[in-house]
């Protein structure tokens, strides 16, 4: 019995980690800039397509015809060599194999630029406008982003293979004293979880131990006071938006082997992430992280056949149900502060 | 006995915020038809006291009684329906609506109660209420601005309109929170004139203010609040002559 529960717990971790990462970025943007960003899911999706783009670039091929050999049906044999492999040899092959983790290197600058451009170009003008208008403009931006991706990459999901060495499963059970092969967990999901822990830890450390982070935290607590201190909060907020975009993008990149990305990936995650943020409490970073994992794990348990036998359909609605109950019973979510976003 | 016409009684109210004793042992009796001013230096607890009276803050102990009804625990709209209207420190008005509609809305609340589903009547056919509102606007000298959008009024006009919104309900008790805060000398004087004008109508008023000029031109009775306690209570002349008050409050001004 314990094994089953533990396994479901593990199964919820990777999805929970994705929710937590998206919700973390949403909360950073909301807490610092005071903007409700419906385009945040689109940033997650754009990150995922950075990985797609990187791989497509790496797998550009040259076709040479080898006249000495023929294919089974008599035509001259075409030999396809990825350019990267042609240029870099074995290292190129490794690069292709590990394209997903390597694409983080290009994702960071791309997402930072996208984030800063969005903030300077559009979001900035919405700080003082009603939340409804912020929701609407970012909702429109999300539509634009997903349609652009659709017209470039097509409507179908594009699978991203994980590196061959990381395809197996980890026998977690045997690590903690169970029999071998009782509790196994796909290695990439474990990596995703650890990756999210590192990112979340990094963001918290950054906010806790740097001067920049200190100002941002003060700004989240009381924007006006910090403004009165004469600190140029605007530039920091631009960087903050860029940072949130980077976090969302990296979360998207690493998630591609688990779920082949398509253009509406962002919208799918956005709705859930908003629920996560609200459950955690608008403006609370620990709340967002806790609620992300909590909902991921709850969803995993709700999809157990034993549970579904008792409450049919529970797996379909669990997240929304939890959101409704928490909002009605604890209006400010698990860790929200009073008076945030109520008008 | 004087007790017979006490309309508002703040009885032994204490309010603590964490370790801070914001209000201590407040006992306040407001007589019917009188203008009762509460004055005190900044941070004395005046706004806290007003919020306790209006039911926005629950007192840590003690209670507020209005004409036999305990106010503590009631919702703002219920308190209003008992006959209490409030003017805010920064005018709370319907900025998107016209001045006339701003004044008509409270008249509907007075006539129809907390909720009525009167959606098939045309607003234009509510002539009685409109005339009443126009009358009220004339009283406060704003009839010429009746079709303006309320949000575009000057600060003084917003305040006068808010006052009209309260007066049209003929409240038994009117609470005024620094009615001249942030106003020019001219606007302050017109507001005082207006308040003096309505004084003759026999409405009870509680006014919170730190502008001495305003207080001494309006109040029948003054309570002085300092550090969450009432340190003096009496007619304007008594309070003016009270050495404790001079020390705590007026001393700084003179």
């Amino acid at each position: 019995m314990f094994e089953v529960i533990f396994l479901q717990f593990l199964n919820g971790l990777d999805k929970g980690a994705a929710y937590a990462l998206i919700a973390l970025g949403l909360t950073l943007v909301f807490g610092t800039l005071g903007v409700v960003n419906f385009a945040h899911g689109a940033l997650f999706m754009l990150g995922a397509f950075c990985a797609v783009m990187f791989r497509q670039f790496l797998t550009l091929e040259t076709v040479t015809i080898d006249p000495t050999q023929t294919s089974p049906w008599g035509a001259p044999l075409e030999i396809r060599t990825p350019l990267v492999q042609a240029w870099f040899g074995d290292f190129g092959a490794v690069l292709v194999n590990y394209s997903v983790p390597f694409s983080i290197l290009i994702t960071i600058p791309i997402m930072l630029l996208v984030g800063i451009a969005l903030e300077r170009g559009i979001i900035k003008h919405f700080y003082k406008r009603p939340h409804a208008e912020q929701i609407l403009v970012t909702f429109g931006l999300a539509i634009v982003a997903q349609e652009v991706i659709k017209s470039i990459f097509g409507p179908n999901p594009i699978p991203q293979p994980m590196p061959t060495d990381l395809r197996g499963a980890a026998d977690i059970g045997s690590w903690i004293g169970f029999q071998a092969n009782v509790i196994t967990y796909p290695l990439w999901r474990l990596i995703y979880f650890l990756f999210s822990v590192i990112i979340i830890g990094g963001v918290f450390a950054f906010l806790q131990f740097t001067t920049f982070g200190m100002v941002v935290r003060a700004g989240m607590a009381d924007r006006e006071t910090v403004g009165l201190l004469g600190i140029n909060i605007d530039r920091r907020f631009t960087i903050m938006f860029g940072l949130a975009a980077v976090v969302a993008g990296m979360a998207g990149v690493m998630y591609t082997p688990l779920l082949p990305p398509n253009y509406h990936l962002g919208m799918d995650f956005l709705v859930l992430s908003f629920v996560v943020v609200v459950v955690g409490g608008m403006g609370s970073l620990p709340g967002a992280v806790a609620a992300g994992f909590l909902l991921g794990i709850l969803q995993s348990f709700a999809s157990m056949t034993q549970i579904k036998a008792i409450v049919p359909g529970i797996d379909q609605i669990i997240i929304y149900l939890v959101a409704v109950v928490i909002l009605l019973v604890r209006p400010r979510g698990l860790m929200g502060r009073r008076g945030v976003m109520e008008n | 006995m004087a007790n017979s016409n006490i309309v508002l009684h703040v009885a032994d109210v204490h309010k603590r915020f964490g370790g801070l004793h914001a209000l201590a042992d407040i006992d306040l009796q407001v007589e019917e038809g009188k203008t009762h001013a509460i004055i005190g230096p900044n941070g004395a607890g005046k706004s806290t006291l007003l919020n306790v009276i209006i039911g926005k803050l629950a007192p840590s102990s003690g209670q507020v009684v209005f004409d036999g009804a305990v106010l503590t625990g009631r919702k703002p709209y219920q308190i209003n329906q008992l006959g209490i209207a409030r003017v805010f420190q920064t005018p709370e008005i319907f900025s998107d609506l016209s001045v006339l509609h701003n004044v008509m809305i409270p008249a509907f609340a007075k006539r129809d109660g907390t909720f009525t589903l009167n959606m098939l009547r045309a607003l234009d056919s509510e002539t009685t209420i409109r005339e009443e509102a126009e009358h009220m606007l004339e009283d406060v000298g704003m009839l010429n601005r009746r079709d303006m959008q309320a949000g575009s009024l000057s600060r003084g006009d917003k305040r006068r309109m808010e006052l009209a919104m309260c007066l049209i309900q003929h409240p038994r008790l009117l609470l005024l929170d620094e009615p001249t805060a942030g106003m020019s000398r001219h606007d302050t004087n017109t507001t005082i004139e207006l308040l003096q004008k309505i004084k003759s109508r026999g409405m009870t008023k509680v006014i919170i203010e730190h502008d001495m000029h305003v207080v001494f031109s309006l109040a029948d009775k003054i309570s002085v609040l300092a550090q969450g306690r009432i340190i003096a209570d009496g007619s304007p002349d008594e309070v003016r002559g009270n050495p404790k008050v001079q020390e705590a409050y007026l001393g700084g001004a003179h």
Partner: protein
Amino acid sequence: MTNFMSRNDLLLLVGFTAVVLTMPIWLTPFGAGYPDLLQRFMIFGIFAVGFNILFGLTGYLSFGHAAFFGVGSYAAVWSFKLLTLDAIPAMIFAVLISGLFALIIGFLSLRRSGIYFSILTLAFAQMSYNLAYSVLTPITNGETGLQLTLSDPRVLDAAIGQSFVGQPVPTLLGQQLGGYAGFYFCAGFLILSFFFAQRVAGSPFGMMLKSIKSNQTRMQFTGFNTRPYALSAFVISGMYAGLAGALLAVTDPLAGAERMQWTASGEVVLMTILGGVGTLVGPVIGAWIIKYFENILSALNDNILTQFWSFLPEGFAEIVVKVTSKFVGDGWHLTLGLVFVIIVIFLPGGIMEGVRRIAAVARRSGPPGAKSHQHQPAE
């Protein structure tokens, strides 16, 4: 008469009616004069007018109104299946059921305001959508969608001995409601809906809703319990959505769960914003424009574009075709998204604000005599 409706309101209603009823004529040159699309104009017009009663008047932004639309469709189809193929009982049934559904969801959601309210409505709608696809399959027929069959009981029809040959279709007093008959049936409801919305907006109740949007604090200190007002608006707009959903089932008796998805809720928000929040005519225009472009733009393809741009020099024309093709056909959502972003940034009041601004400019540059009218009434 003046007590009943002001002169301006009456003129607006008459004008609106005329525009709607003559649509089959004046929309033909635009390629939109066919019944199928015209019916959709009416149906989504009703949906948007109703949504505006909640969002436009009270300011509460619901992200789950598609749920009521879907419930209306299901209720109407069930009425066709169980009772009769006549449309009127189906409409009544659908409006009542969706109103009841809105009452429950509204009662819970309106305990919170701001974004919490939006998320609550979104969560309820997504739950309805997910359940319609899974556990509620006996009621909704899951992914296939609820359809009419020959073996449906239709007890009322059976009682009066009416029977049909072939595929059952909704009727009105024995008349089939396909084609233009369907359009005029829907048009009648749109005009009625518009009239009712006009009455609501022009009533004391409507003024209370606007004051809730303007300042809830003052509303409460003025002696109003704001929640029943907001709840009434929520239920009314839910019933409008149910009515629209039922009409969609009348014109095409098939109800699917995708009508309840949050993207469908987002669409009605787009319509209302595009046309002009809080105005009477704006949401209808927004709905028409979105439905029109959805049909027209998504039907364009490279061939048509090549013809259209053929006057350009050869190489250049190809580039232009390639670029424009991204914005039409399957890509028309991109156009929609861009237009929407531009509207929210530059024209938050939607098309109606644009019209007002143009009118103001025209008046300013008009004859000097007209000038004095734009000032506030003089002292």
